[in-house]
């Protein structure tokens, strides 16, 4: 499945065809769930966030606008927002208990696909690890912790200009290290 297929399924979803959720779920849930898991650090919470995200995606399917980004970005953004909301609610309640260590869940993916995905995953993680530590730190704090630019600058004790520079360099380098064709 590629970007064009995504658009086709999204078109069917917008026409009210609920069966189009299935191929979209199969293709995009790993990224959505992975982001939620990184943010929440807890499987049960990440699963709830994923469910909320898909319900929101279904209810607000008409708001998807292909001129503003692809289907994957739209879905992952929803999942990230739901996970960050949940994390903020937990933080405001001062919740610290109930954290379950993250184990890889059993997979139903066929071995060939799993191997290809694992290989790509390894390359992406290597690419991330190869970034300058400050660049990587800014990307992870911004995306997975949901901090604003001024909060990141305060956390790192760095000028805002450096935060902007590290964010840009980090993203562009990540993009160069693993060409888009390999992970879309």
């Amino acid at each position: 499945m590629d970007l064009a297929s995504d658009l086709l399924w999204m078109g069917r979803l917008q026409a009210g065809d609920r069966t189009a959720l299935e191929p979209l779920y199969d293709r995009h849930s790993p990224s959505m769930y992975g982001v939620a898991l990184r943010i929440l650090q807890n499987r049960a919470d990440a699963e709830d966030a994923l469910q909320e995200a898909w319900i929101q995606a279904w209810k607000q399917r008409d708001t998807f606008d292909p001129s503003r980004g692809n289907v994957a970005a739209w879905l992952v953004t929803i999942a990230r927002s739901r996970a960050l909301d949940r994390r903020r609610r937990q933080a405001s309640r001062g919740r610290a208990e109930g954290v379950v260590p993250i184990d890889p869940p059993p997979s139903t993916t066929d071995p060939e696909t799993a191997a290809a995905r694992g290989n790509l995953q390894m390359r992406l993680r290597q690419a991330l690890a190869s970034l300058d530590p400050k660049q990587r730190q800014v990307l992870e704090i911004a995306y997975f912790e949901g901090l604003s630019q001024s909060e990141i600058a305060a956390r790192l004790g760095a000028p805002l200009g450096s935060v902007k520079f590290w964010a840009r360099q980090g993203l562009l380098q990540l993009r160069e290290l693993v060409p888009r064709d390999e992970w879309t």
Partner: protein
Amino acid sequence: MSVRHDEWRELCALYALGALDAAESRRFEAHLATPCHDCAWELAECAEGVSALTASAATTPAPGLRTRILDAIAAEEGLAGGAKEEKAKRVERAAEESAYPPPLPPPTRIQRLDTERERSDRRIVRIPFVAALGWAAALAAALLGIVEQRTVRRLESESVALRQQQARLEDHLAEEQRWAATMSSPAARTAILAATTQDRAGLSGWALYDPSAQRAVVVLENLQLEPGHDFQLWAIGPHGPRSLGVIQVETGGRAFMRLTRVVVPADISAFAVSYEAKGGSPNPTAPAGPVVMAGTL
């Protein structure tokens, strides 16, 4: 390009990462809508980096979750649909009541024994039977209408998606044609890049720059990279150097770069390559490491 615009451009990465607060995001989106193609392009590149970041975190959810989520959506839809159906039935009932006489109770076994009452009842019972035929016809027509409407909507959306796909392919083709035009542009100028120090005498390369399209093609060879370092490309203009980014060195020490929006004000007079700590110089207008290659246009 004004300083103000550079500030907008610097925000692209943080916007793509969702690290601007609501007010900052609104201002940035307003700037994008001006429209600003330069920032839109930069944002698209940063968004690809964010996609790689999210893909690096991908984790397959537990198998049972798929059914749970799809069922939850179906249940939500069922509840919403149930309310709609109930309302539709109420409307339908009101319409039926005005269009047809109220149905009579069916004849009982006792009534059938009474021939006089039986004849009388049969006459009356025909009225709801005719009405039922009318309802069935109306229902069939309504169902056909719904099916037809859904089919039309689906075909329309598929048509839109195909047009979008076609537009993407046309964009891709146009982009390749623009590169071909750059390579053969009469306005394009070339620079031969050579090593500036003896210890890196093997470095060689060339750059082609088309100021009218603000595009450049750079090919470099024999780039020997040590761990913890990067080569960085610079455009030299009348106001000094400007970073064109860290160079991605391929196996064998070769690098091939196609650069768009090479927007150094006025003319570029030269290209240079510096040898930097990993990640490149923190200052986009000055190398931090030694310049190891240079060539004038």
